[in-house]
């Protein structure tokens, strides 16, 4: 099993490997993709990034990023336990995060504002995971890599499972898209319009657990926030239409993953470092962009069309109270 981090040592064993990119991008990409481990990393990275980006947009809309963070940490105990028992760590993450997200979904509103409870369960799970690692006498690299990602070590079988999971998550996401959007934006009205918001919440939490399990392979449980939340948060700020937001969020997650894989291929630094840095940089850029656009928009925007004379004073009064 190939560990996380530098691939220089690995690639250096291959004859004809020349570190560092040249001037010919196509040749560089061909060079990069001539390695099976790079092809696997790109395939699994792309599949999990699409899902992380799309699910992540709803994570941001539903303001459940802390839950996503907690689920991944609870999943770590599953990963360490699975390693101890001789199973795949990703399977362990999937089982435990599905269980945790299901429980959170069922508890639903009762968990709102209970960050202390979620945080304590999360810390206890991390502690348990650490115990499992210390009990494990074999190669601890396996469990360690689940903390920070292990995308270069992914097997072809795991790639297929990742792609399959992505297809399932996408299919469910398409099927529940409109009720999920409605419930995420306006739960009370959605409920009044006959949407089973409780069932939608549980369903979404399970999708989130699957997205977490996939994204853990790229960024690891500790850094999952970057891939799952940052593209969604950027899209929330930039896009007017939900479809555009999803395209931005999914596209950014894929772009961040691709650039990170390529950078990690040519440098001695780990993939998840690039993922988190690019995600953070992207978020800062989006904030700067919206701040600039709002200032420019305020100066440029014509007076709003009003219904009648009676609204004019009100609008002015509102503007005065809100914008100060």
């Amino acid at each position: 099993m190939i560990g996380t981090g530098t691939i220089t040592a690995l690639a250096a064993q291959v004859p004809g490997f020349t570190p560092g990119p040249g001037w010919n991008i196509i040749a560089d990409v061909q060079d990069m993709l001539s390695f099976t481990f790079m092809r696997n990393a790109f395939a699994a990275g792309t599949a999990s990034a699409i899902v992380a980006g799309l699910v992540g947009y709803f994570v941001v809309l539903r303001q459940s990023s802390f839950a996503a963070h907690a689920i991944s940490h609870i999943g770590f105990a599953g990963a360490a336990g699975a390693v101890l028992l001789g199973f795949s760590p990703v399977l362990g993450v999937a089982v435990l995060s599905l269980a945790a997200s299901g429980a959170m979904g069922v508890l639903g509103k009762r968990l709102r504002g209970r960050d202390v409870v979620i945080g304590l369960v999360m810390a206890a799970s991390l502690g348990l995971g650490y115990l499992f690692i210390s009990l494990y006498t074999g190669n601890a690299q396996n469990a360690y890599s689940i903390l920070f990602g292990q995308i270069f070590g992914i097997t072809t079988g795991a790639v297929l499972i990742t792609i399959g999971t992505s297809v399932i998550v996408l299919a469910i996401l398409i099927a529940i898209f409109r009720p999920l959007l409605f419930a995420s934006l306006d739960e009370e009205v959605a409920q009044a319009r006959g949407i089973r918001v409780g069932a939608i919440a549980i369903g979404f939490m399970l999708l989130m657990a699957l997205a977490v399990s996939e994204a853990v392979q790229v960024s690891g449980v500790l850094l999952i926030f970057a891939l799952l939340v940052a593209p969604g948060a950027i899209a929330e700020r930039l896009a007017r239409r939900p479809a555009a937001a999803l395209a931005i969020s999914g596209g950014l997650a894929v772009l961040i993953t691709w650039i990170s894989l390529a950078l990690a291929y040519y440098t001695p630094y780990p993939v998840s470092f690039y993922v988190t840095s690019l995600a953070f940089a992207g978020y800062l850029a989006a904030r700067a962009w919206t701040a600039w656009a709002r200032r420019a928009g305020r100066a440029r925007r014509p007076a709003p069309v009003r219904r009648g004379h009676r609204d004019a004073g009100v609008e002015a009064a509102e503007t005065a109270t809100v914008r100060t």
Partner: protein
Amino acid sequence: MTGTARAARTAPAAGPSQQPGGQDRHAADGPVIEASGLASGYGGKIIWSGADFSVGAGEFLTVLGPNGAGKSTLLRMVLGLLPPAGGTLRVFGGPPERGNPAIGYVPQRRALDPDLSISTEDIVGLGVDGHRWGVRLSRRAGRQRREAVAEALAAVGAAGYAGRAVGRLSGGEQQRLQLAQALVTHPRLLLLDEPLASLDLRSQQAVSQLVADLHAEQGFAVVLVTHDINPVLPVTDRVMYLAGGSLCIGTPAEVITSENLSRLYQADVEVITDSRGRVFVVGLEAETAHPHSPATPPGAPS
């Protein structure tokens, strides 16, 4: 949908309200809401009981009362989200059902995430097809949706910010957008929960005037929950006052009297009318006095 609720609804429908007020319009259409011996509550706790009233088609009813008096639970029962704790409730002549497109609902507003950049149009569009499964594929459905949204936005005077990000709208603008979303299905009954809370005085007047105008133009019945009667006093047909576990319904002049409210609150209450016809209820805790200037604390039950 619980068994107890269904069983309770088999009793005969309620008669006309105890004190019918000025709702002569649309009288032939039959009542929109009929309650007989209706009780409200959940978890074994009764909030109020013994309510007999009906709301006529096209009537404007304002529901008043202090925090926790069960005003929002009344709306939730009409929406079919909460079964009656006793008695019968009929909506459009049948049991309340969830997801009835003939009811428009504007819940009490929480502040939207200011970073939320989804457009006003898309939020209103949720009222058209947000409850359907899958994604919208047909071009025709998309065009019909756009037309319905544009019409609703124009009706509430919000056409000017159709494309703007909802997170950047003011409180009054967000309230209009909520109204447009509720009206996009052309409901026969509009339920508004504290639409005036956390708005400044002039926005309160503008929103209540807008609701009154739309009510007059489109002819739907309105049930509006508020702490403060004064902004809606000129436009409401009748008021319902909920306090102390029971309620009282009639014209404002009939209901908001010192005797009535003292009986409801089981305390000495005085109703004062000023030179411009505004009413003030005094002798209560600051929380329940009118007009209610401090905003309701977030998350307070109502």
